[in-house]
């Protein structure tokens, strides 16, 4: 349904109509956004229709969209390095980015659009998303630890934002790791996500440069338990117990930074860990079904934990092998720690040896990186799955709170003196 280009009763306007109708388009955008907001509160039928038609997700709010938002199908993630040393110039870019993000997530073109402007100048918008629906695009910005070494921000770096330690088995590629800032673009249409990153990169030229980026498809985690749990490229359901967008209490406990956790500028924000996890697909595919199921601690068909019948049955960890993935990753094995995952599969063609260059682009949000990803990943050192995967890229970011309204901008709480 989400790829259905036109339905007569579609509640979501196309980008073209939004661009062309001016005021009317804005009104329609507001309606679509309203529907999406209602949807995140845990949808009735009307809201589901809005989601399937590729509606707009509200850009403004106490938290950035793209974290507890129902996971979209596609990803374009980009890490940037800051080139400018001029704080005012960087802040202006953040404002320009915010304005562009506000428009793009609303299904509108950047600036004066992709056509109809001056013949002698390149258009403001690159144009490849014209005619496409907003496609539930969310854009989420994060600041890496290295950013705090710039612009005199060292004393603003949150304690919870630490560089990740070296984990057993890591084979990190510097060219796929780190970054002063990141933008996560999620959408149901890959072209909409790519369009967003491309336009932000363009606005950023001279101020920031893309350090690395990653495309993802086939979400591997769901924040909507009423949907089927998606499968990863190993063919297993992943993230059955992921924190749902509707679980206010668990989000509050594990994901959103509060006044107590601080610092002030991060309240309402979260911390993001991104890991590019290469899968040794070919050797995995030669592994017996029994071993595959033992490694995960779930069966492959239903996804039920060992000894249980249904996917969502409470796992009995002791029934699993001591090195089973679910057993080691489960909150009870990690002092109750849990994280919100919204990772994606990736396949970047094949490597020089003809092996699929594929795996999981893992994205995890948590209140504190030390108690979230680091604790869990350390516990996974003996994971039987490690024989079939390798972490090849890594980055961590502080994801500031949401943009409140049309006058607010990404990073204001950190960069604005009034904050």
């Amino acid at each position, binding site marked *: 349904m989400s790829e259905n280009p036109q339905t007569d009763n579609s509640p979501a306007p196309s980008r073209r109509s939004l661009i062309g109708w001016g005021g009317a388009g804005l009104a329609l955008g507001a309606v679509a956004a309203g529907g999406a907001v209602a949807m995140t509160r845990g949808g009735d039928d009307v809201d589901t229709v809005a989601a399937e038609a590729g509606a707009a997700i509200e850009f403004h709010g106490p938290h950035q969209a793209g974290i507890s938002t129902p996971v979209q199908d596609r990803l374009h993630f980009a890490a940037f390095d800051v*080139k400018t040393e001029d704080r005012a110039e960087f802040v202006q870019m953040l404002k320009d980015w915010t304005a562009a993000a506000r428009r793009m997530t609303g299904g509108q073109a950047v600036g*004066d659009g992709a056509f109809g*402007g*001056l013949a*002698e*100048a*390149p258009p403001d918008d690159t144009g490849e998303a014209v005619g496409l629906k907003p496609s539930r695009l969310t854009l989420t910005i994060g600041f890496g630890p290295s950013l705090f070494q710039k612009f005199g921000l060292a004393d603003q770096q949150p304690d919870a934002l630490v560089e990740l330690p070296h984990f057993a088995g890591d084979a990190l590629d510097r060219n796929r790791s780190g970054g002063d800032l990141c933008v996560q673009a999620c959408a149901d249409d890959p072209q909409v996500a790519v369009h967003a990153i491309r336009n932000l990169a363009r606005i950023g*030229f*001279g101020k920031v*440069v893309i350090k690395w980026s990653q495309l993802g498809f086939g979400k591997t985690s769901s924040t909507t338990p009423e949907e089927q749990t998606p499968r990863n490229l190993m063919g297993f359901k992943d993230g059955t117990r992921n924190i749902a967008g509707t679980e206010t209490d668990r989000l509050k406990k594990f994901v959103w930074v509060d006044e107590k956790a601080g610092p002030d500028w991060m309240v309402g924000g979260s911390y993001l860990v991104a890991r590019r996890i290469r899968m040794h697909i070919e050797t995995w595919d030669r592994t017996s079904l029994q071993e595959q199921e033992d490694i995960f601690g779930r069966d492959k068909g239903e996804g039920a934990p060992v000894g249980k019948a249904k996917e969502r049955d409470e796992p009995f960890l002791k029934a699993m092998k001591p090195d089973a993935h679910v057993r080691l990753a489960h909150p009870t094995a990690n002092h109750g720690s849990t994280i919100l995952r919204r990772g994606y599969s990736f396949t970047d063609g094949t490597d020089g040896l003809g092996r699929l260059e594929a795996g999981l682009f893992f994205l995890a949000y948590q209140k504190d990186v030390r108690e979230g990803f680091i604790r869990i990943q350390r516990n996974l050192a003996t994971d039987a799955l490690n024989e079939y995967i390798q972490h090849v890229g890594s980055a961590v970011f502080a994801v500031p709170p949401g943009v409140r309204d049309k006058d607010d901008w990404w990073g204001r709480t950190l960069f604005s003196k009034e904050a």
Partner: protein
Amino acid sequence: MRAVRLSAVTATATVAALTALTGCTEKGGDASSDRVINVTATDSKCEVSTKEFPAGHVELAIENKGSKVTEVYLLFPDDRIVTERENIGAGTKQRVTAEVKAGDYTIACKPGMKGDGIRQDVKATGGTAAKRDPRLDKAVAAYRTYVQEQADATLPLAETFAKAVKDGDLKAAQKAYAPSRIGWERTEPVAESFGDIDPKVDVREDGLEEGQDPAKDWTGWHRLEKSLWKDKKLTARESELADQLITDLKNWQTRVGKANITPTSMANGAKELLDEVATGKVTGEEERYSHTDLVDFKANVEGAEKSYELLKAVAKENDPALVTELDKQFAAIDTLLDKYRADKTSYDFTSYDKVGDADRKELSDAVNALAEPLSKLAAAVVVK
């Protein structure tokens, strides 16, 4: 600024629509025939049917009654080309059209396609007057001089290079190679506007068209580059190629000053020079045997900077923030490039195969940082 411009466009469109309505009954009659100018060219004359015509859509109906192949130009007073038609054979007719704003123009016929031509002054009247900024006319004229100077200065350097090739002096030829290309690289978009010269002098092997034979059809600098650095031998074929290069460059030298240059083509040409850097030089693809990519890189940036400097005064009025940004980015890229040469007066740059991936990324980032604002220069010099 933009809103004002749009409303002006709308107003023009409205006028045009009214004109179309009132004029529709006269279709095919006087109203349209007014705008056809018959140009009769001979070996010694250039006669025009009218010297005054209404501004707007104009058609030149050209008949060559002479014995030589001719070409006909409609020119602005500063010799910028409004429209042109080349290769009009003896005894043939050609038609060429243009949108002409009110103002003074010149029609020139060039029997034998040589020289300044036989000229007639004409005038377009009524309609919207072509708004012309004399500073831009001066910029175009100065840039025209610059491209000619670059071609003139290139020839002796290219001859030195060609001589070394013909003498079989590998070392001297290698040394003379990169300097012989600087003038060309500074003004490449103008040279490319002729279409036929660039594929002869600056094509790389993989740029040959389908059906072309590298052994026969691949000529120019890069073909010799391969001989000098990869094959490391100079034969009779290389001597032929050296002669051919000089012939082709002389063709460029005689034509470059007549290129169609406008303020916007200067601005976009500057951006195209940076595009050349982005796609060919930062990858090391351009000079894959000699690794002299940074020399081309520098020359491309210099050419772009020349256009920019000439257009700057006008751009500054229309978009001061853009000029501030461009000044900053040109300075940044120049500083970065200086890291790769010991002497700032020489063009001895680091061999590009010695430039690591991280440094190449830094150069690429600098090109993007400059090219993005540079793409907005044309809009800033459009006469509003």
